[in-house]
């Protein structure tokens, strides 16, 4: 077991990209905050543990107003990891760092495919077929366990097993679960309103398509424990229907 002896490495910094949800306040900010409160009231933990970037390109705020807005968001348990869309001259110490080069996550370039709370090594979720010209998809042959998070923004995610309570699938495209979906499924996460969620048995904690979501509370009992699909209708309402 000599390989287990910890070796001291020299310090290395590697560039690495992560997925973050950007929220963009609209003027007037006061109204925007009350809209935010209204949606948070429906599901207060929605932003819990999420990486959130603040896109200020639609509003024109002074540094102190930005600081106030960040505080307001923190009071709502939304922790801002960075700010984008401001003139760097407006930044001052104490504010979250300015982010640059952000792009909508539906990029052709292969980025990080899976990030898991407990990243599973070699077996199971394999590398996405990012070299192929076909639409990317990720197939997971094992159950996704509670606490694990599968994030694949390039396309569809197919899970052959079940998705446990407390697990999470985030896909740029559609999500297919051939077992029971007990955790969260967020399809079309990069702004794709046509993505859908299919599962063999629905007991989901949360379903979201293009960030329009429904929690378990809002899913009718008559739909539960059977094959179902979810999609967004023209009015951006998340619809769920049985599939047999």
């Amino acid at each position, binding site marked *: *077991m000599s390989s*287990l*002896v*910890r070796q001291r490495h020299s310090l290395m910094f590697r560039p690495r990209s992560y997925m973050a949800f950007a929220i963009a306040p609209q003027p007037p900010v006061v109204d925007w905050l009350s809209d935010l409160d209204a949606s948070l009231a429906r599901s207060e933990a929605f932003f819990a543990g999420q990486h959130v970037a603040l896109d200020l390109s639609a509003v024109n705020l002074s540094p102190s107003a930005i600081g106030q807005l960040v505080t307001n968001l923190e009071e709502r348990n939304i922790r801002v990891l960075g700010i984008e869309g401001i003139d760097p001259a407006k930044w001052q110490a104490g504010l979250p760092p300015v982010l640059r080069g952000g792009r909508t996550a539906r990029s052709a370039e292969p980025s990080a495919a899976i990030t*898991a709370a*407990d*990243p*599973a*090594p*070699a*077996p*199971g979720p394999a590398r996405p077929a990012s070299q192929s010209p076909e639409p990317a998809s990720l197939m997971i042959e*094992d*159950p996704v*366990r*509670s*606490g*694990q998070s599968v994030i694949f923004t390039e396309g569809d995610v197919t899970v052959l*097993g*079940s998705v*446990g*309570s*407390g*697990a999470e699938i985030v896909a740029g495209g559609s999500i297919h679960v051939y*077992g*029971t979906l*007990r955790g969260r499924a967020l399809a079309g996460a990069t702004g794709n309103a046509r993505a859908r969620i299919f599962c063999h048995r629905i007991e989901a904690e949360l379903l979201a398509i293009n960030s329009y979501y429904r929690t378990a509370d809002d899913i009718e009992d008559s739909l539960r424990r059977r094959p179902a699909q979810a999609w967004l209708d023209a009015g951006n309402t998340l619809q769920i229907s049985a599939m047999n």
Partner: protein
Amino acid sequence: MAQVLVVTSGKGGVGKTTSTAALGAALAHDGTKVVVIDFDVGLRNLDLVMGAERRVVFDLVNVINGVAKLPQALIRDKRLESLHLLPASQTRDKDALTEDGVAKVIDELREKFDWIICDSPAGIERGATLAMRYADAAIIVTNPEVSSVRDSDRIIGLLDSKTVKAERGERIDKHLLITRYSSSRAARGEMLSIDDVLEILSTPLLGIIPESQEVLRASNVGSPVTLSNPLGAPARAYFDAARRLKGEQVSMSVPSENRGIFNRLFARKAA
């Protein structure tokens, strides 16, 4: 070749320590050399359940720190010659365990024993992750209720990612042990059915241990239930589980409370 087993669950109070002791004694019954290790540093219990609390001199942390040699810390069971206990320290906490130290102890035990059973503490923190770190196989102890099952699901995810075997790209063998099962309560819908638990966890079943006063009684007198009452229902279920661990094919039956025809109607076989 020695097998390192971790008995784990995520949730506390589901029967990890009881099962470690019972399976340890069942495996050692035919003279197979077995050691049970208590990883619950600071909240040790296995010594009590094994009835060895008055014979603890050195412990796991002493061995890791080099205060004592491994043979000095091992306690031989008075009833079964081939069964040994490596107790935890009660005065320290989980930070006293180091990855290298645990690796060294396990390696040394692999030389001496056929089965090394690591009794994990509850939770998913240091004590639990170190208990599973070097395991070849895991026994996931689950009660048939939702919180226990979800915690087990989480633990299975950790077993597939945080163990040395998983990091080498191999697969850790996982066995599900359902404890405190009551057929009458399951029939009344007061607890999850065996099928529900198996469906949620999709992990092979090692055994079903019935809820029984005998288990509590055995713990209180400091004896693994497989030694205190080897013919009782829980002991027989543990013996069957131990035989399955050794690779034998033993048919699985759902334990039912023996109350005549009513229960016989509900008796059936599980997968």
